[in-house]
């Protein structure tokens, strides 16, 4: 008669083999389980003959634990399969990062998000709409990129496209970190100071920006609010260029300064564009107005309207350009920081 503990042990062994079988390739299930079962029985017999008694449940458990978890044991019989193999993985990772982090995220956060928020009367639903759009777009794009790469992986294993490469088609090696030349820095300071002087002269000499139209057009009342931030931004630009001249070894300063300037310019432009939006009465906030004495001239009013539309379009165009510039500058700065970190790491080794 079978002992209760032996029955339990047999049941434990059967359960183990059944669990292994579940994860095995169908065609080989029986064959593999038979062989594994034979090995386990041989181990049990050997231990039993050493102990001169049947194994108890915990001793059998120890043998099974040594053998490994059913899913791991079964996985070793399967050929290694990848959705995206090691050859294409770095390219997939690079494309994913480029598209999600450097293209979609900035477009959604800097362009579409603020556009939705400014177009909506309440900001909370607009922020939520932006966030849900962000999640949907990022997840679906990541899935689409992964599917494309999974297909490429299948093709690559057959066509071996990566093996067909030519050393002459390699991209040029990156240039070593270059300090800006002194002449370049001096020239940048001169142009920065000239720009600042031009900005400071504008309130007194409007023809500097309006040209002959300054005779009958003048800046709208909204400009004084932005004048100080714009002047401070120009001073900041000159300041970091001066620091760069005296500290050329601070190679991180020009890209960091440019990025800061771009971001601050974006903020100012955003408010400038937002202020031009029509009021509740449907009146557009102008950037230029007709001078006293010319209000009754239909031609002057028409020219003022054209100038206002041109200014608005230029501001929007500049804003889009600065968004792209910010993304590029952020990417360059990150790359420079990474290079510095990896160089420091190499030096440490």
């Amino acid at each position, binding site marked *: 008669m079978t002992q209760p503990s032996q029955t339990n042990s047999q049941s434990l062994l059967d359960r183990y083999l059944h669990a292994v079988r579940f994860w095995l390739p169908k065609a*080989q299930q029986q064959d*593999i389980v*038979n*062989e*594994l079962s*034979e*090995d386990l*029985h*041989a*181990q049990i017999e050997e231990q039993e003959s050493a102990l001169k008694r049947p194994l108890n449940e915990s001793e059998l458990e120890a043998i099974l634990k*040594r*053998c*490994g978890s059913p899913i*791991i*044991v079964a996985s*070793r*019989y399967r050929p290694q399969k990848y959705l995206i193999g090691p050859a294409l993985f770095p390219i997939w990772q690079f494309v994913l990062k480029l598209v999600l982090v450097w293209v979609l995220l900035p477009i959604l956060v800097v362009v579409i998000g603020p556009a939705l928020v400014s177009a909506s009367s309440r900001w909370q639903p607009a922020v939520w709409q932006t966030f849900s759009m962000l999640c949907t777009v990022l997840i679906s794009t990541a899935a689409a990129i992964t599917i494309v790469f999974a297909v490429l992986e299948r093709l690559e294993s057959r066509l071996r496209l990566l093996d067909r490469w030519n050393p002459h088609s390699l991209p040029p090696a990156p240039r070593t970190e270059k300090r800006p030349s002194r002449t370049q820095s001096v020239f940048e300071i001169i142009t920065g100071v000239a720009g600042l002087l031009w900005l400071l002269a504008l309130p007194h000499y409007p023809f500097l920006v309006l040209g002959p139209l300054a005779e009958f057009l003048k800046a709208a009342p909204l400009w004084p609010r932005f004048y100080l931030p714009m002047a401070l931004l120009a001073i900041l630009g000159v300041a970091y260029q001066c620091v760069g001249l005296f500290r050329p070894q601070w190679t991180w300063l020009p890209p960091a300064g440019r990025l800061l300037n771009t971001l601050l310019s974006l903020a100012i432009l955003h408010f400038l564009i937002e202020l031009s939006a029509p009021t509740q009465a449907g009146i557009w906030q102008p950037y230029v107005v007709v001078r006293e004495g010319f209000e009754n001239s239909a031609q002057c009013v028409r020219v003022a309207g054209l100038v206002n539309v041109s200014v608005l379009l230029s501001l929007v165009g500049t804003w889009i350009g600065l968004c792209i510039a910010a993304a590029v500058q952020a990417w360059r700065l990150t790359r420079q920081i990474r290079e510095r970190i990896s160089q420091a790491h190499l030096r440490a080794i």
Partner: protein
Amino acid sequence: MSHGTKNPQLFENLRLELRRGCLIVAVLAQLRTEQYGYTLRKALADDGLAIDQGTLYPLLRRLESQGLLVSQWREEDKRNKRFYRLSPTGEPILRQLLDEWNNINQSLGRILQEA
């Protein structure tokens, strides 16, 4: 500087990588005489090259699918066992692998002497 003592996982990974190729040669060499899985494992362990069944059986199947081994189910001691032996295709491959192994061993010896 001993990375092995600082990072046991790293050492374990490198050890497994080093063993992987050696195990194939050892299994092929052992199977110049017919054996079944359990006795093969015991023989390898007795010679100082312990291998767990989760590694050995998939390896045997792979070597058989590559034509280096042949197998046969047979009853022995009232139990069905699968017996493996080196195939005619496997014999010259084993000789080549052993030559390669000797070359690597000699090169390593020279490198270590130079060091």
